[in-house]
């Protein structure tokens, strides 16, 4: 962790790049990182915690093995995004941000993937999918091991 932090210290506004790098490496922002970052950037631990908690992307608890994001924004709603999302939540038996019991899938809402002309849209571990219907979503979830 110390190496990741010190790799970014030359940047202007280093905190977000540090947090992204830590999360890429560890799958979450480990609690032990907060005092190390605070010390390296000469800011308070409260400030570091404030930044981590402000942004939707940063997690202190690890996600499932796969992260499925379903777009909830208006353009996807206009083509059945809500029904798709409801069906996915029901199928997995989780709430938003929840992880399936077997640890395979975390389901998250996302507000716009920029695929507004081919919605409903979803993203599985950074790979985008357009015109997702319930059958397709069931297939994606099954592939992810849910």
């Amino acid at each position: 962790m110390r190496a990741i932090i010190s790799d970014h210290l030359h940047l202007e506004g280093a905190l977000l790049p540090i947090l992204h790098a830590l999360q890429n490496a560890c799958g979450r922002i480990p609690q032990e990182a907060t005092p190390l970052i605070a010390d390296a950037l000469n800011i308070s631990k409260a400030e570091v915690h404030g930044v981590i908690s402000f942004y939707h992307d940063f997690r202190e608890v690890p996600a499932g093995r796969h992260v499925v994001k379903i777009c909830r924004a208006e353009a996807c709603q206009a083509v059945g995004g809500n029904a798709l999302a409801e069906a996915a939540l029901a199928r997995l038996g989780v709430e938003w941000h929840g992880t399936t019991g077997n640890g395979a899938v975390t389901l998250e809402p996302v507000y716009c993937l920029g695929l507004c002309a081919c919605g409903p849209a979803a993203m599985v571990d950074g790979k985008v999918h357009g015109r997702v219907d319930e059958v397709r979503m069931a297939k994606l979830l099954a592939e992810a091991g849910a």
Partner: protein
Amino acid sequence: MKIYVPMDSAAKALGADDVAAAIIAEAASRGLEIELIRNGTRGMIWLEPLVEIDRGAGRVGYGPVLPADVPALLDGTLKGLGRVEQIPFFARQTRLTFARCGVTDPLNLDDYQAHGGLAGLRRAAGLSSTEIVEEVTQSGLRGRGGAGFPTGIKWNTVRQAEADQKYIVCNADEGDSGTFADRVIMEGDPFCLIEGMAIAGLGVGATKGYIYLRSEYPDAIRVMQEAVRIARANGVLGADVLGAGRAFDMEIRVGAGAYVCGEETSLLNSLEGKRGVVRAKPPLPALQGFLGKPTVVNNVISLATVPVILEKGAQHYADFGLGRSRGTIPVQIAGNVKHGGLFETAFGMPLGELVLDIAGGTASGRPVKAVQVGGPLGAYMPLERFDTPFGYEEFDGAGGLIGHAGMVVFDDSADMLQMARFAMEFCAVESCGKCTPCRIGAVRGVETIDRIAAGDPGAIPLLTDLCETMTDGSLCALGGFTPYPVMSALTHFPEDFATAKEAAE
């Protein structure tokens, strides 16, 4: 034989990577020599994956292509769309900002230059900073992020500011639903944005730039990072831009999923490594922006339009448009539409023509009920407002805003009370929490709309009053503009707010 398969993420989302792999495999099995190019998208998303084949007589389109279509595609027996440039949706556009998008290989700098790339920066390198800013001012370019502030005036403020360091910050936090123009150009013509930022740097005397790019766009991040690396390796960026003796370099920074960071002051805080909380203005970012230094904060499309202005001259650009809205605007047609995609056109086309003619009406085949223009903070425009010409002042006069020029079409199954509720819910989720009207108002807004839905007639004036408070009292556009979708839904579609009440009675 050249074959083009887009690498745009909308095309990928519809299977472009599988199609490209199938083409390579099929060509190899036939011993057929092909050159496969991963271009950007032409913007006709309903045709994606749109494969183009150049057999020496122009580019012929096929789409949507499935992997199973590939044998017929290579046989020449697959039914085509004809010359891509002659597809009506494409032929009716005026492509200035997006002239190269979909045409070239996005990461090929030679290809970029062969299609007019770097001509603007070369011209700018021979001009003084005053002349560069004057050119942008004369073009009439206004902030394409939504606010519509004249770009030249902003640049001039930064140019005149005295400082040891100035910055160009590109706002690529395109979070509005229904908008994807920033993504399309970053994935389809990234050098154009880099060139625009370099020109901005020369114009105002800034040597360092940042693109604040949202994390929801992993493909755009990858393409932009690679493009910056190539530009630096070829002397487009660095200590001596194009050998002109002036320095400009830039970095890509990734956001972390906060919608409010699309607001410029919140973006600057985020870029500095802080919570994305809105700053009060003044001081203007032009004078005290990133790290307190004079900073140009412009949207992707504003900056990506600068090269063509410098290349063809301010007057060429200003000759397009309507009233005080000069030049072209990339309209993004989305939601429940037959022909969704990106349509760059001169300002002035009526909304109805875009929705009913260009977009071909709804995909569901049901009647259009409403169109939300300008993202989640834009008004729902009813059919009665379809004569409104696409322009900043014209939309303002019709009770709406063009924002980032995204259009989300809804058919008659849409429940406008639910859409109004969603607008408040979204504001509550995404509020930075600094000002009370936004932080508390949005929560109360959801509750008040639920009361209306439950049949409480007294809640409607309360909602109106709440919206006025949010409009007048919020620090930024998130709280300040959320009343646009809410009040437009209530005003134009009162029946959706009345049914529950009548049922209760």
